[in-house]
């Protein structure tokens, strides 16, 4: 079953405020994590997103769709990156997320991808 593991945040709250040591460790950590998931045959995809401050939001206004600068959510709640993993069960997805949380110390969201067969 597939799960999306999502990290949220913004530049102010994240990278920029951390020291050099931590950042180097973080880069190594992410590299190792992706590598492990690739080797275990669980990684479907992983992407990082440009900072939320660079986002545009398309809204329906006065009967038409209009693009405006800025993210939809508060920039500190904006999606930063995600992994999609294909794992044995939810426990395994949570274990992967825990490994990330143990390092980054910020909450991570884990959601099932809709890939289950229907019952009928």
């Amino acid at each position, binding site marked *: 079953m*597939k799960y999306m593991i999502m990290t949220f945040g913004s530049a102010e709250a994240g990278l920029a405020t951390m020291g050099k040591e931590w950042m180097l460790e973080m880069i190594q950590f992410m590299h190792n994590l992706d590598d492990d998931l690739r080797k*275990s*045959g*669980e990684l479907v995809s992983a992407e990082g997103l440009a900072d939320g401050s660079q986002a545009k939001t398309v809204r329906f206004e006065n009967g038409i769709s209009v693009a405006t600068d800025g993210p939809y959510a508060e920039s500190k709640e904006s999606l930063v990156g995600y992994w999609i993993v294909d794992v044995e069960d939810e426990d395994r997805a949570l274990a992967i997320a825990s490994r990330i949380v143990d390092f980054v110390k910020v909450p991570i969201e884990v959601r099932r991808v809709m890939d*289950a*067969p*229907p019952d009928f």
Partner: protein
Amino acid sequence: MRSDARTEDLLRELAPQVLGALVRRHGQFDMCEDAVQDALLAAAQHWAEQGIPDNPRSWLLTVASRRLVDRWRSEGARRRREETAALLEIPEQGRSAAEHDDTLSLLFLCCHPSLSVSSQLALTLRAVGGLTTAEIASAFLVPEATMAQRISRAKESIRSTGARFELPAKSEQADRLRVVLHVLYLVFNEGYLTSTGPSLNRADLTAEAIRLSGMVHALLPAEGEVAGLLALMLLTEARRAARTLPDGSLVPLDEQRRDLWDRSMIEEGVALLTRTLGTTAVGPYQMQAAIAAVHDEAPSAAETDWPQILALYDVLERVSPGPVVRLNRAVAVAKVHGPRAGLALLGTLDDDERMKRNHRLESVRGHLLELAGDLSAARDSYQRAARMTASLPEQRYLALRAARLA
């Protein structure tokens, strides 16, 4: 590459036999498996150009043996002795008695209990089903590199656990066979998700599960549950064309166009079941097949023999008790004794931890509440179920169901 259907069928049929023969001779399941895949690809190419050889099995065995030697060579000279032995070996003529066991041993190995379920599925489809890694990856909607890694890890753990290429001891065989059947059942289930991949779509997975189950049934004709599983698959697959609309939305059983059901598949499933029932101990697959058969044989939803289905669920719950069986039995109870009786039975599942996160309890409850005329409670149940399911078509179906009652 494998456009010719006859060639493809033949290759897939021969794949486990050739692999079995190779492993029996040399051991080293993982390397033999790679060599056979190479040989299958070579065959698909050569046979398309030059036609199928007189003895395709020998052809494959010879090419696979050569590829095995190539692989040993590339590993260095440490296998010089086996290499020579493999070269001197004359390709098998005819079929040995051990061959019957080879395919089974292969299945038991690929479905080894030490492997994760996803590894069991992938390995079975490749080593026994003869599918390529790319085909399996596309069926499970993951990148090819991910699937390749999964398969190679599975082979690695077979090597490290020291699992042997042989039939399990008599005392273990029933348990091991249960794992094999579960894997085939899951392959079939995966095929339920209607989605199109480039080379192998999910519909082909159900066909593959039926083909492999048919093969196991031919090898173990006296095993009632093998026949039961095969019959269950046939009787379920028969409804495929009626189960979804062209836009992918689901059609529940009682609203399906029965003229779209595949009659010959139903007859095949019913005949198989009739031959099987009563010859061995009753098991869950046989019972589920029997229930599917009652549905399939009803000329219309209204003419369904629900008392018969309820009786079968009673037996099923006895041989294989569990919340999901109880849930399905509640539907039959509702049809026979009224929706309130069904709802009462559902109530016994409310405190069951295993059902806490299962959307089916709420979706069945919604259905029974709707039958009982309690429309607003039915709508709530459908909406709860829609939030809980991990199936997109089912979520849409349930949301639509709720919207209809608004």
